[in-house]
């Protein structure tokens, strides 16, 4: 696919101009994650490190493949890709395995696959293609509704898996891409109101007790100290006790004493904060910012609408995960199962993140070629 456009051949020369800083940040983050996972799981019967290392390698391979794919061709096939992703979401409802109250995993041989991670990428692809075709200064309301429709299907399916956090992650993707493709501010405000009403409906009719408890706990942490409140409290203690320079690698009492639940997945950042202190937190936030800034740079110099929208979609996905997860660990937002990109233990998520990175850099690579 490198040679789809005969008028201007891509050469090795073009590789130098690509925003490699984005990949470097991603790899650094993944390595930090690896070290932290080792620390968080060494007290357990089995160390998660080798498995995660393998996944990072897999992620890099996925990166290379994504990088070599032409996003225009991908956009052309976005409908079947989307359909396939939706099929997987339905499949997981039927034969998926359960973990932590959510039925969101597919077992593929020895590997576990979370189809919602694939669905996120597929949705971004389809949204980018659809919104790119609109090509006006402001998007009209029927078109907004159509975009909402594209997003609503996976949201609904993921919500049916009882993975509300995962379902919620589609919303910022849609919001970011709509915003960039030109929504009037007043429409945005109206949309926010609609979401609020929808939220109230979901709260009352669609949410399960434990999910409601989580939100309530967040609003008043004393109400359920045993479960969600406990998690929040322990996470905050872990973060706070890290102080400026941290307790040192593998020295965190919170994590080593197993006070922290899900410390190798959703709360990996708390382990890091405890062991490396504020300086460690800052370093990781800087790396994430570097990733996002490099991404913005790619979007700013991309030449066509599809490319820009794709990059914005990926950046929304990654940045929202980062913001929500780090905010959750320090107790700013309710606890829900949102992993931290590149750092959290988990197979399909880290691969999906590397695919997104590959696609972004692939877009950058082709910026003189595609139009």
């Amino acid at each position: 696919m490198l040679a789809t456009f005969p008028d201007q051949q891509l050469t090795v020369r073009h590789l130098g101009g690509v925003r490699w800083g984005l990949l470097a940040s991603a790899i650094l983050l993944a390595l930090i994650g690896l070290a932290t996972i080792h620390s968080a799981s060494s007290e357990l019967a089995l160390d998660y490190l080798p498995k995660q290392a393998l996944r990072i390698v897999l992620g890099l391979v996925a990166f290379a493949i994504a990088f070599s794919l032409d996003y225009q061709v991908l956009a052309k096939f976005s409908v079947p890709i989307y359909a396939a992703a939706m099929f997987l979401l339905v499949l997981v409802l039927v034969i998926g395995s359960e973990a932590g109250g959510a039925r969101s995993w597919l077992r593929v041989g020895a590997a576990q696959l979370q189809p919602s991670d694939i669905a996120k990428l597929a949705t971004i692809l389809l949204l980018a293609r659809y919104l790119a075709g609109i090509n006006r200064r402001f998007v009209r309301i029927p078109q907004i509704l159509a975009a909402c429709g594209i997003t609503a299907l996976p949201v609904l399916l993921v919500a049916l898996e009882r993975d509300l956090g995962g379902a919620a992650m589609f919303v910022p993707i849609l919001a970011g891409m709509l915003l960039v493709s030109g929504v009037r501010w007043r429409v945005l405000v109206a949309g926010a109101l609609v979401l609020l009403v929808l939220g109230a409906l979901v709260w009352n009719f669609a949410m399960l007790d434990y999910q409601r408890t989580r939100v309530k706990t967040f609003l008043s942490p004393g109400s359920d100290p045993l479960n969600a409140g406990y998690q929040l409290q322990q996470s905050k203690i872990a973060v706070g006790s890290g102080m400026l320079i941290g307790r040192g690698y593998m020295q965190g009492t919170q994590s080593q004493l197993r006070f922290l639940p899900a410390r190798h997945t959703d709360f990996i950042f708390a382990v890091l904060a405890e062991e490396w202190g504020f300086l460690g937190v800052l370093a990781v936030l800087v790396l994430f910012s570097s990733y996002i800034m490099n991404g913005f740079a790619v979007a700013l110099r991309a030449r066509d609408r599809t490319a820009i929208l794709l990059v914005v979609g990926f950046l929304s996905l990654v940045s929202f995960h980062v913001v929500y997860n780090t905010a959750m660990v320090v107790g700013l937002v309710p606890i829900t199962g949102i992993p931290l990109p590149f750092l959290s233990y988990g197979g399909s998520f880290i691969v999906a993140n590397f695919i997104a990175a590959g696609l972004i850099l692939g877009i950058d690579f082709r910026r003189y070629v595609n139009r």
Partner: protein
Amino acid sequence: MEVREHRDDLVRRLPALRLVFLIVVALIASCYWLVQVVHGTFYRERAENNRLRKAAIQAPRGLIYDRHGRLLVENIPSYRLLFDRSRSADFDASIRFASQVLDRPADDLQRVLERARGASVYKPVLLAEDLALAQVARFSVEALEHPEFEIDVEHLRLYRHGPTTAHVLGYLGEATDRELQLAAGELGAGDLVGRRGIESRRDSYLRGRDGERVVVVDSRGRLREEYGNRQAFSGRDLQLALDLDLQEEAARYFENRVGAAIALDPRNGEILAFASSPSYNPNVFARRLDRDQWQNIVEAPNDPLQNRAVQNTYSPGSVFKIVVAVAGLEEAVVNEKDRVFCRGATRIYNRRFRCWKAAGHGSVNLHQAIRESCDVFFYHLGQKLGIEKIAHYARLFGLGGTTGIDLEGEKRGLVPDLEWSLKARGEPWYPGETISVAIGQGPLLVTPLQMASLMAVFANGGYRIEPHLVARDGTAPRREVAVGRASLEVVRKALWAVVNDRGTGASARLRNVDIAGKTGTVQVVEQKAWIDSSELPFEKRDHAWFGSFAPAEDAELVVVVFVEHGGKGSEAAAPLARNLYEKYFNGADGARDLS
């Protein structure tokens, strides 16, 4: 192109978005600054005080009673001393204190701790078990000075009657990895599960469910918060059909003997006494066994862990003649009047078969042949029947199959026939073997429990019962045996004569109870001549059987006694049966009224 023109619209809002992201990240970073740097000391202190303890609340296991409600197994509290290294301010002082209270040398305690090295510093180490109450009190009083010590209560299983009931009750042992997997979360590492006996068979019934206490204690061991308890549910109690008096009597008899005895109610299969000797003390398993104790049990002579009543098989000897007798009557190859002349031996298939009585019994009919256990009579009867017929009736009476008792590891025994011979031995059946089987020798093998179940059929007028140790409400299932009542009656009468009318079982006789029974003596080594077994070395002496029931007319109790290398059935086995009947019918407590 259009695309180019509208590209700028898209890019317009990007810098704003980028700014929003940076602001949000900065906000989050400042939040971390607040929590980690500004309030860091506060959280660091809380982390220090944060000691989460999860303690299992042990669910007491169900108690086990005998049929009269007498306690057989109970749980007794045992106090254990735990030592938490992370809370000890001065390690040597801690050890000195413990050594003084426990009255054990400090080196000794050091060694215990060294063995636990490598485990997490935060996990308390088991320092001593079985503390006296005074010691528990000392540690409680000094709790402020020595927060590193913790007292833990554990319930130990106490088998009140030790070896007497060991083969019935079994004992407890730590769950194996496999059991943990099978239990799927119901068991935790280190949990005890039943081994052997009722403890094993009714494990889940007795077990109950452990609870859990989650508490957060501060660095000095003071309780700070309690994160909810999961209640423990104790196991259910169990009542056995066993009669402790009879059980003790049987155990006493076997003190210096090897073998098994079973007393059961032929009407419903309830087992009142169930002894296997030698036995072991199940209480030594209550605590983690050390290698020596285990070795002692395993290497003890005659394997005390073996339950001889259900796990060992033996030749039934002459007791089997009652099966052959019924077979003969049912197949009409013999009637009550037929006589055979016994001159101490007979020649069949060109081989000489000896009767146990060298002088011979003279002319005997079926009744007399059973009463005096004449071998020659049964040699000829066996020859007429053939092995297939004998095997058929043996199986009708439940031999060659399990009885269904509520214990594990029950053996099926062996009822040989033509097919078995070809399949298992790869050679044809020799007619001469049929002659041996007819008097209960040869390849025929039974368990003592099967013999009890066989006697029950004659005792209750033709029903196979399911022997069981756990008391049941309502009637027990029983199966009619497809043989004529008349044949059973003929044998039953002869069995009465065995004990009461100059028969071989006279030593079992009681004045006021009509006992019916059959003796059996099993040759262990082939003897060329008539030699009294008691003159042989122990391991070559005959095995002794006595199968019986009483009252003969309307039986309430079946007693089967088997003594390995005991010699003659009449001398070695029948007396115990008599003792048991005596206890049962004329018990000192006057429980039975024989009006």
